[in-house]
């Protein structure tokens, strides 16, 4: 285990967080809020730790898969632990566990809140809450790869551990360029949304924070009723952008590089749009009778579908009051999730497509036991290894999910609450149904249930395995083993002879 390298990466992550924490401080200065000073304090603390940890460059930058997973998991944990401090220090969230829940919910772009009254928060804290979405959406390590020079192919292991989706491909040969392209697309789309919202008459603060929430597919709003009190036009802008941020970013890359045909032939994007349109149609027909105007029904249906499938979690209406059919559709959408390679969570559309094809193949093998069929995806045959890891992913997903529901039910709330609370955090959505519905929040859970949900959020964001590997004893045995030092000492002695 290359500990110096892990330390170095973690230090760099802290340095980046220090810079990011300066932004809410600026916002606080503009609104002349006393809380801003805590952000500067935490920022300098992060910066100090970061500088100490990156003071010595690691001698070897060998980086294997296990280091990649461990580093990713630890980065996210450290990032959240420091990010939670300002909420706690300003006294806006009195318990550190709650502050941590809020921050993890932010970085994992979940958007599940424990705050009963959002509007009581200061502007700088609201801004920081939304900024965590924006950082967490594309990933802090991808950002690190884009700005920090790291040689060696090992850095691919970092990106693979952080990016959503069954298989992570690069857009261009160099990982640094890939990371930069992703961030430029991300930034550009966010800016476009901010501008559109401004033009539609939204105040600057709201447009920036809501755009951050949309871009990261997070879901923290700045008003108590989420998006409901904004104008219909603004709701539609947010709907469209939520759906756009749930599209595989390779699609935009192809568009920019004039490979439009290749972009539109992406199966995942096509199916993603088909699922969205079907869901909107289903819900619209189901809730039409509740509304006086058809357009309002369509607006709400489209907004909720876009919000849930991309795992954003904004809402314009209390969909907990909708008929059972519509609610069921929404719960199913929670599991499907957005496209791989987007900022959204969930199981991902691509996994769904491949899983359905595996099922079809299996059925075929019952009819023609000796038939041979290779599953194709995006016009390419899938390797056995990809299918295997996909199946294992789904099984692991189900096991973790069931286990979480079981453990959380120790709190003695009703099944819908428990089930959707886990679904909403595990898939990084935010609101669930019943007690954790759009009008509720997660504050009532016990500390243990909250810790469990935090682990669920991290596991969901990092595609399960980087977090699960933390529970494997061998990782820690290797991490704490003194073998390396012994070998080094031996080598030194050898050099002297």
């Amino acid at each position, binding site marked *: 285990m290359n500990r110096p390298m892990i330390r170095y990466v973690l230090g760099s992550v802290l340095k980046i967080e220090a810079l990011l924490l300066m932004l809410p401080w600026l916002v606080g200065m503009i609104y002349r809020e006393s809380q801003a000073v805590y952000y500067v304090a935490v920022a300098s603390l992060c910066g100090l730790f970061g500088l100490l940890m990156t003071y010595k460059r690691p001698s070897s930058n060998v980086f294997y898969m296990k280091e990649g997973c461990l580093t990713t998991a630890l980065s996210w944990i450290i990032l959240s632990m420091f990010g939670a401090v300002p909420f706690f220090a300003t006294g806006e969230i009195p318990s550190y566990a709650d502050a941590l829940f809020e921050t993890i919910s932010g970085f994992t772009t979940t958007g599940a809140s424990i705050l009963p009254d959002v509007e009581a928060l200061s502007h700088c804290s609201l801004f920081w809450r939304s900024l965590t979405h924006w950082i967490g959406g594309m990933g802090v390590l991808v950002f690190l790869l884009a700005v920090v020079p790291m040689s060696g*192919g090992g850095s*691919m292991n970092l990106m693979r551990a952080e990016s959503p989706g069954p298989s992570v491909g690069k857009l261009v*040969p*160099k990982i640094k*360029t890939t990371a930069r392209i992703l961030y*430029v*697309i991300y930034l550009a789309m966010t800016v476009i949304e901010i501008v559109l919202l401004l033009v539609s008459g939204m105040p600057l603060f709201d447009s920036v924070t809501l755009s951050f929430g949309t871009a990261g597919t997070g879901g923290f709003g700045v008003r108590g009723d989420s998006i409901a009190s904004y104008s219909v036009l603004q709701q539609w802008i947010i709907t469209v952008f939520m759906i756009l941020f749930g599209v595989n970013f390779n699609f935009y890359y192809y568009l920019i590089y004039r490979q439009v045909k290749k972009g539109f032939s992406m199966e995942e994007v096509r199916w993603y749009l088909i699922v969205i349109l079907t869901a909107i149609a289903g819900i619209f027909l189901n809730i039409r009778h509740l509304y006086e105007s058809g357009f309002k029904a369509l607006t709400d249906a489209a907004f909720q579908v876009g919000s849930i499938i991309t795992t954003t979690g904004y809402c314009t209406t209390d969909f907990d009051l909708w008929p059972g059919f519509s609610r069921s559709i929404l719960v199913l959408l929670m599991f499907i999730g957005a496209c791989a390679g987007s900022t959204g969570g969930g199981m991902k559309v691509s996994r769904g497509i491949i899983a359905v094809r595996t099922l079809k193949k299996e059925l075929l093998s019952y009819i023609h036991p000796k038939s041979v069929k290779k599953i194709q995806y995006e016009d390419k045959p899938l390797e056995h290894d990809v299918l295997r890891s996909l199946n294992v992913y789904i099984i692991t997903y189900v096991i973790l999910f069931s286990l979480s529901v079981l453990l959380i039910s120790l709190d003695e709330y009703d099944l819908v609450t428990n089930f959707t609370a886990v679904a909403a955090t595990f898939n990084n959505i935010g609101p669930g149904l019943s007690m954790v519905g759009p009008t509720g929040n997660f504050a009532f859970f016990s500390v243990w249930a909250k810790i469990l949900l935090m682990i669920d959020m991290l596991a969901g964001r990092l595609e399960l395995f980087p977090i699960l590997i933390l529970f494997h004893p061998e990782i820690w045995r290797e991490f704490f083993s003194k073998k390396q030092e012994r070998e080094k000492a031996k080598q030194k002695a050898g050099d002297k002879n």
Partner: protein
Amino acid sequence: MFLSKFSQAIQSENKGLHIMIVGCGKVGVTLVEQLSKEGHDITVIDTDAGLVQNVTNTYDIMGMVGNGASYSVQIEAGIADTDLFIAVTGSDELNLLCCTVAKQVGDCAAIARVRTPDYSKESAYLREKLGLAMIINPELETALEACRILLLPSALEVGSFAHGQAEMVKFKIPEGNLLDGISLMELHRNVESNLLVCVVEREDNVIIPSGGFVLQKDDVISFVSTPKIARSFLSKIGFNIRQARSAMIVGGGRAAYYLATQLLKNGIEVRIIEQDKKRCEELSILLPKAIIINGDGSDEELLREEGIDSVEAFIPLTGIDEENIILTLFARQFSNAKVITKINRIGFKSVIDKLDLGSILFPKYITSEAIIAYVRAMSNTIGRNNIRTLYYLVNRKAEAIEFEIEEESAVTGVPLMNLSLKPSLLVTCINRGGKILIPKGTDEIRVGDTVIIVTVHTGFNDILDILA
């Protein structure tokens, strides 16, 4: 529009070339390793998904599974933006086809590996007709290098520059030698002035020495000089400079064929031991002057019977590294023959270095040296000073580069002592119209010269890079 400009800005920031490599075999991976270290954008194509997976996991490059000769695969891999296309699959025909297609589809330079003797004689013709930038033949290059060593057996390595007019010779100072304990200044004054010691390896260190540097026994030194002076110098310090008269080669593959042809041309008697009867017959037709022995080259009795103790050079060229190493160790124990070991794989290099095998050839490096030299010259946008030759020295810790000086620049027309050069760098040799100068501080570089630089810095593209 706005976005595309933006992304172009991102892309143009890295100055590397876009290189596409077909074939992830040994040579392919060596190229990837070196080229990705030099900062180029690399895409590899291979039909074997496992190989592609391996190489993309280890290096920061893009991989694609597919047939590299297929038009659509090349398009998808981005041939349109590719500057250099290298085909190094196992099949010559496929390599040539890949390059031909690539030349039609994209606007790029193409390099193909062609190693079958049938084509190698026609390589100049093929290169011209197919419009290729380079045809590489690792086996032939290996054979040529082995042959150079056998013509000067006391050397560990011999590299040739300026069409063979200058040579870089590497040897180890034995105990009690004249050179043990004298400084380079004394060496110039008392022994031979017309040569330049450019690299000294002492234990694990690589030193580019200055005049006051004192040589010791067991130092491995490399010097540049003309072939004639090199020989007279080596004989002055008590080395045997007579070329080997007989050679025994184990294994009758392509490399053996090329080596035997070269050796026979230089009047060296050749014995080849090959296990496969049919191959023996082929070889006997191809090489009528050589003695072809059908037998197991790893059989100790057979080697003794065929006179391993009396032969003057012994070169195991089987496809298995371990076998080559064992045979070399055996030969060093039982005879005084000059041995050359060919190592195909590069793993466990630290162990191999400790074994004291004498001259070691790495065919993979020999191939990549030529390609890297070409790539460096290609990515050189500053001037038009081309790289002619490039050699890795000492496990690639140092490089010897031959530059062609085609135009006036900051380094031309100025006495060398007035130039502020980078540390650990030597201008070792100037070739002016076929005459080899070992430069003094008062000499200057002129347009039309070729200049050989030895340095521990890597990645020089242009002669101007020597300035601090």
